[in-house]
């Protein structure tokens, strides 16, 4: 055997020996690369509903009309919606919660969602119903849902199934309500030049970090890295944004079941006869006026407001737009409740 061949074999043995050893800091340990969740850190404000520990807070008088803020994703969290706390100062009870498997709420295995088939989304409706029930202090208390993006889809779906339980609906740029529209919107809002930097930011990290099916900390971290900015919609680009922790499993599972069973978030909306307040943004290139028109056709009565100078998240996260357009319109809408 030559010296080079001996060296070659020695190198293989050395590398294998090292890669089998154990060590210091683990990427799958919560608190290292991503924050801990409510079940891992008792200092996180939380409520337990439907067997899940949800990161949740509420502000404002307990018996005032309830405004439930519902975050986007699936797999986002409510941190970027916190401007809505101002509604509490105006006399409303504002509720925030991270949906199961999202933000700082408890994580669950992928199969706990996918094994439910088309009823996977029902978990989310049931959870929203349970959150409302948790915070609603009297039967006369009005309930208004305020959903952004995926939160708008979830809120619309919930209202369609429970029109009698909701008094008002405010939605901000839901991608679509019929599944075909959801796919269309996602394709247009996530498309990028294959020669551009955006592709690397999505694909290159896969050779540095890999996570197994239910290694939430790793997968959530990768999701945060991959969705760091979007030049089409403006998320974390020309719009300010902030989040605690992505939920990769719930995001993938709900998209998978939605695609398979063609989830319809507009089902039953024709039974909801109260006015709907609908916001969309001027700078989200995937959400032109024509798209807003198409999506709002599902509501019986709707007021559309185009928020100038911002993108998808900026409807709420842009301080100027929030103060001058979004908040005044919401206050005008809810003043009768």
């Amino acid at each position: 055997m030559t010296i080079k061949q001996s060296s070659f074999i020695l190198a293989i043995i050395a590398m294998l020996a090292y890669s089998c050893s154990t060590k210091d800091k683990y990427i799958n340990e919560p608190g290292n690369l991503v924050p801990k969740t409510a079940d891992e850190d008792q200092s996180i404000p939380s409520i337990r509903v439907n067997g899940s520990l949800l990161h949740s807070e509420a502000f404002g008088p307990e018996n005032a009309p309830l405004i439930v803020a519902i975050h986007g994703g699936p797999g986002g969290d409510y941190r970027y919606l916190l401007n809505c706390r101002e509604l509490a100062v105006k006399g409303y009870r504002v509720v925030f919660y991270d949906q199961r498997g999202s933000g700082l709420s408890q994580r669950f295995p992928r199969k706990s969602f996918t094994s439910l088939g088309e009823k996977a989304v029902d978990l989310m409706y049931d959870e929203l119903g349970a959150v409302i029930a948790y915070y609603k202090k009297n039967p006369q208390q009005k309930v208004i849902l305020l959903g952004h993006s995926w939160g708008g889809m979830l809120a619309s779906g919930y209202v369609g199934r429970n029109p009698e339980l909701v008094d008002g609906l405010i939605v901000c740029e839901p991608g679509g309500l019929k599944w075909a529209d959801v796919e269309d919107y996602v394709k247009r809002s996530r498309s990028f030049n294959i020669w551009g930097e955006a592709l690397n930011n999505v694909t290159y990290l896969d050779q540095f970090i890999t996570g197994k099916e239910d290694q939430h900390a790793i997968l959530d971290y990768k999701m945060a890295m991959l969705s760091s900015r979007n030049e089409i919609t403006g998320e974390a680009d020309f719009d300010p944004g902030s989040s605690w922790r992505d939920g990769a499993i719930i995001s993938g599972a709900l998209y998978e079941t939605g695609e398979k069973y063609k989830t319809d978030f507009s089902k039953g909306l024709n039974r909801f006869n109260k006015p709907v307040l609908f916001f969309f943004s001027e700078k989200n290139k995937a959400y032109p006026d024509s798209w807003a028109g198409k999506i709002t056709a599902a509501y019986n009565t709707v007021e559309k407001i185009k928020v100038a100078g911002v993108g998808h998240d900026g409807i709420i996260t842009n301080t100027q737009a929030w103060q001058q357009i979004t908040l005044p319109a919401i206050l005008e809408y809810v003043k009768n409740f």
Partner: protein
Amino acid sequence: MKARAFCTLYVCVYLITNTLSAQTINWANPQKGHVVNANIGANYGIIYRVGYGYKTVGRLPLMATLSFSVPSGDQLFDDFATHYGLEMVFLKWRHIRGTAAIQGIYRRFRNDLVTAKNFGAGLSVSLGVYKLRWFAAAETGFDKAIITHFQHSDVYEEEFPLVKNGWYNPATGGNFNYGLRTGLSFKNNELTLRLGSIVNEDFKSKPMLPFYLQLGFNYSIASRAKH
């Protein structure tokens, strides 16, 4: 401390193995000498790569290689990878060759949120037919991200102030690949093609770009062989 020990070990391995990345060459070529190559393809992004190799001859030839690659993008050198190592023929029967390669890898990823630097290792084997004018072989390999350093940006630290920067190990990732390599040889030149699939080490999940495709050109500069 462990990270420093690893770096020392890694440098030693690097020096022992001389350098390389598994370059796609025609092992039927009887010449020894230098090989320079360039290729473009898709492998965790749209990748441009240049490489150099030195090939020995004999009953079971060896090739030491070194390559540098960057993904396409507005910021060309924010992400990159270097591969270095050895590939050797371990089986030779008529026109059939079996090869094995070991690579050391150093790579970097940078976006608005993090700069990640990784030391990795790659092992691969191939088996196929090699003739003077052409070759085709099946290949499979494993790419292990052995140890990774994370340094997060102010943007990420504002979101998660308690994030722990530094070296992370044990291994932070690993992917298998399997596919084909083929090529045509003429004079001192070779046109090569590699393509195949990539799967996570759990054999369930896949990377965002679950395939690789590499089109390459090799130019050989023969050394005077002693017979």
